């Protein structure tokens, strides 16, 4: 028989206001095995933990139940407290009477009753708990960063500076990401390239950083400290070692009709290309879909003009397998597709563009060489309308329910830059709210209005109608004046919602990292663990976790790096002892469990057994507890019940079921 102590936490008034905590403690004493029960204001506090320690020692407890907040919150705290007092940490169970009880119920009697039942279930479980010892696993001192934008670059530099090897895997031919496409950055109006390029160079020159561009993560296995990752290096068709980056091939390439990804399809590029002048590595790739040589077998001009002999049409995709201790996801974002927003005439008029396209138009390296002009006829616009929240804050299925966060600021930036450079152009911004929380942000927006005379109108645009004269008729509302506005514009710029890079879902599945309904990766705790995924060893950097601007991204990138460094600095990790075990006398050796194990943790061995006097050799399942992650798939696949999960055994769960249904 166990000697169980029950500790009921008030959590200030969080629990005590709805649950009669002293009643719960009193009821605990009536349960089998319970020899001690008390309630206290804050069990997780130092004083609370001291009470637990005292009870463990004085009453010689063999198990304990804490009725408190979610085990996801403080299970680790109480386990540590138990361990310090000499009790095996796995003899601790939590009854979640806060999140699952006091916070969602109002009636004191009802909530108290439920709390008692939850406590009984936990006591019933502890009665069947057995002390467990965690194992150890090694840590590979190398990190993988998925995504080579500003978030990935910053994380990689920070990890590498701490002395650990880092690999960056970037899908496109160059690192740099979205930031490399921007012209200027708010709120200081630095030139984006001027601040990003040095970071790119630093990453590529860093002796601890290895960059795989034009590559994708193909497969991930293993677990925290010991991931094995297959990286597909897509065939570049250009030898990275031989290429000097002279650029002659790109000049001579006769196929120049492929839309430029870097310029958002506003102009074209050659089939052999580097995305932009400052690309790192400065080695082109051949777009095999656009290349004449690959399409028809003829041409081959690039190979002829390449003095270094770097062009290699025979190159094949290559799979590199590497081990990592930590993985940082920095997959960034894209703007949403506007197919469903016919009312803004995006697909009907070349002069309706997204803000990211405007960045390219304003940039000296862009399709118009930095001249503000209409893409339809090249004329200078006189009247520009900005529309905010296009696809953001939408609860229908056309857009995204969240605020994209960066649009208010970049629109103010665009408006200001246009008014500064072209004072004769009128700029109107239709907004729902102007959101400028951030250092110097509101001041920045006010400058756009007060100093640069940008016309802000509170109200959304209902429709943009292309006119026969080439103008765009904008129909919007001015809610403050209670007027409907009709305005002829030369250009319309849409502050298009951003969404996580569509590839992130595939990556999250490989990493078994959880993802929310908007495809943003979920953090382990919204407030206290914002850069960690709930999956151990996976960290989050940048917009893949939620919309953010550059300063926030860089800050989070550094935070993710620190968390990864904290992991890599350890030599050994303690493994979860809640693993599966096979009962040698019950195992049929049927291989069913092996077939459902996602980790390949189950193997079979011929073992001598003594089954009540019958000695024979049997085929028995053996669990490698270093590989087992404790999901329990095998335990249900096993018909005889030979396979059981420590810490969540069949009898423990059944005891909980019985206690709840009692």
């Amino acid at each position, binding site marked *: 028989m166990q000697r169980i102590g029950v500790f009921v936490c008030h959590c200030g008034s969080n629990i005590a206001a709805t649950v009669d905590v002293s009643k719960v403690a009193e009821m605990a004493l009536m349960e089998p095995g319970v020899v001690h029960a008390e309630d206290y204001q804050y069990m997780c506090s130092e004083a609370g933990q001291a009470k637990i320690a005292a009870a463990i020692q004085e009453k010689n407890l063999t198990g304990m139940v804490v009725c408190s907040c979610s085990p996801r919150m403080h299970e680790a705290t109480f386990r540590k407290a138990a361990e310090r007092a000499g009790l095996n940490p796995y003899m601790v169970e939590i009854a979640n009477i806060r999140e699952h009880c006091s916070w969602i119920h109002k009636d004191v009697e009802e909530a108290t009753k439920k709390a008692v039942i939850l406590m009984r279930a936990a006591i019933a479980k502890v009665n069947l708990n057995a002390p467990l010892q965690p194992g150890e696993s090694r840590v590979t001192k190398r990190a993988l960063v998925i995504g080579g934008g500003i978030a990935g670059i910053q994380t990689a530099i920070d990890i590498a500076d701490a002395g650990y090897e880092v690999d960056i895997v970037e899908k496109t031919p160059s690192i740099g990401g979205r930031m490399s496409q921007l012209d200027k950055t708010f709120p200081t109006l630095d030139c984006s390239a001027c601040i990003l390029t040095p970071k790119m160079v630093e990453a590529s020159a860093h002796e601890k950083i290895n960059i795989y561009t034009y590559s994708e993560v193909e497969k991930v296995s293993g677990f925290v400290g010991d991931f094995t990752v297959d990286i597909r290096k897509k065939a570049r068709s250009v030898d990275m070692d031989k290429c000097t980056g002279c650029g002659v091939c790109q000049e001579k390439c006769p196929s120049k009709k492929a839309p430029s990804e870097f310029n958002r399809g506003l102009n074209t590029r050659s089939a052999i290309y580097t995305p932009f002048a400052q690309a790192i590595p400065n080695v082109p790739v051949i777009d095999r879909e656009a290349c004449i040589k690959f399409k028809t077998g003829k041409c081959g001009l690039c190979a002829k003009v390449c003095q270094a002999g770097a062009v290699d049409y025979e190159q094949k995709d290559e799979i590199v397998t590497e081990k990592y201790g930590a993985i940082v996801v920095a997959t960034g974002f894209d703007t949403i597709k506007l197919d469903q927003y016919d009312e803004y005439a995006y697909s009907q008029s070349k002069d309706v563009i997204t803000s990211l396209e405007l960045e390219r138009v304003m940039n000296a390296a862009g399709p118009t060489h930095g001249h503000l002009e209409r893409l339809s006829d090249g004329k200078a616009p006189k009247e520009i309308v900005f529309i905010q929240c296009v696809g953001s804050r939408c609860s229908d299925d056309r857009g995204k329910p969240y605020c994209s966060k960066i649009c208010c600021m970049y629109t103010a930036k665009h408006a200001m830059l246009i008014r500064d450079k072209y004072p004769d152009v009128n700029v109107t911004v239709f907004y729902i709210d102007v959101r400028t929380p951030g250092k110097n942000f509101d001041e920045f927006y006010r400058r756009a209005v007060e100093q640069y005379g940008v016309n802000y109108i509170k109200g959304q645009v209902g429709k943009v109608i292309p006119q026969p004269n080439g103008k765009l008729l904008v129909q919007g509302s001015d809610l403050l004046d209670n007027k409907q506005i009709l305005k002829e514009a030369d250009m319309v710029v849409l502050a298009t919602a951003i969404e996580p890079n569509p590839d992130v879902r595939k990556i999250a599945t490989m990493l078994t990292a959880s993802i929310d309904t908007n495809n943003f990766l979920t953090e382990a705790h919204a407030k206290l663990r914002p850069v960690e995924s709930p999956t151990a060893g996976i960290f989050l950097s940048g917009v893949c976790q939620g919309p953010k601007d550059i300063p926030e991204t860089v800050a989070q990138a550094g935070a993710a790096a620190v968390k990864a460094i904290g992991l890599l600095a350890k030599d050994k990790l303690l493994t979860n002892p809640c693993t599966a075990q096979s009962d040698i006398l*019950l195992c049929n050796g049927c291989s069913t469990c092996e077939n459902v194990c996602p980790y390949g943790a189950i193997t079979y061995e011929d073992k001598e057994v003594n089954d009540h006097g019958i000695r024979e050799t049997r085929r028995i399942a053996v669990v490698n507890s270093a590989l087992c992650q404790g999901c329990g798939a095998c335990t249900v696949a096993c018909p*005889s019940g030979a396979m059981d999960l420590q810490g969540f055994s069949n009898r423990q769960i059944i005891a909980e079921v019985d206690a709840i249904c009692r």
Partner: protein
Amino acid sequence: MQELINRAKELLADGTVARVLGWKGGDLPYNPEPAYFETAEELADFVYNSFCGANLSKYMIEASKLEGKTMVCLKPCDTYSFNQLIKEHRVDREKAYIVGVGCKGKLDIEKIKKKGVKGIESIEGAEITDEADTLKIQTIYGEKSCAYADAMLERCHVCKGKEHMVYDELIGDSKETKDADRFDEVARIEAMSPEEKFAFFQKELSKCIRCNACRNACPACSCRKCVFDSTKFDSSQKANVDSFEEKMFHIIRAFHVAGRCTDCGECSRVCPQGIPLHLFNRKFIKDIDGLYGEYQAGADTTSKAPLTNYTFEDAEPSIVGKRG
């Protein structure tokens, strides 16, 4: 039958096998029982007739542990079970010399008795070589007759086919007996109202005396120790104390063999209470076929079983309420 005995003697004589697993005559003309034969003399008791319904593949679990090979007589449907046992590493293919025996449909003595035939002394037409469509039954009340097809086990009317899935040699001819769809009965129950379904199963299952015959005969139910006998689930009990326990046992038993059951029909054949236990297994087979694609357990030894497999697009459990 003689051909089988002759071959068995040869195999014993040349040392190919150490024993023969077949049937010997029982105390009544219609209840032959599984038996081992180790010498030519013992084979005098060997029988193989239309009452030899027992599936011998499960006996091979123990026989695999013995010295030397065992000659085992397997009917076409038994070979599915044997394959399934190979797949689950329960039998050793190398320890078995499989003689695939012919089958023209096995008989159900209960069906004959239900026709009011009592005091049976002998039955003519049940020998494997007989071509007769009618059984001649000598009883203490005189001769009675019964159409062969009318006396056949339910499972033979929905036979999977007379092809052996695994064998070393074949002896004897078979005759197709399939004349019904095996899911008809299940579909009929599915079409009932919940009240009717419940009443039907309540009535059938309340007959259960927990003798465990179904479990002991089932080749898929071959755990060294059944969960209902172990303490692992706090579920060990030898008798049904209430109607819940009857249901629990049979649902779990069917669930444990789901995707592994070859639909050999032994459970229903051996049930002393005549409970149509195959209706549970066949329900799972029908669901598996319908939801995850046709699957015949024991047709091979390598395919992934439905419950250890999945696809991303699998039906959601809510489909249960949505189907017609």
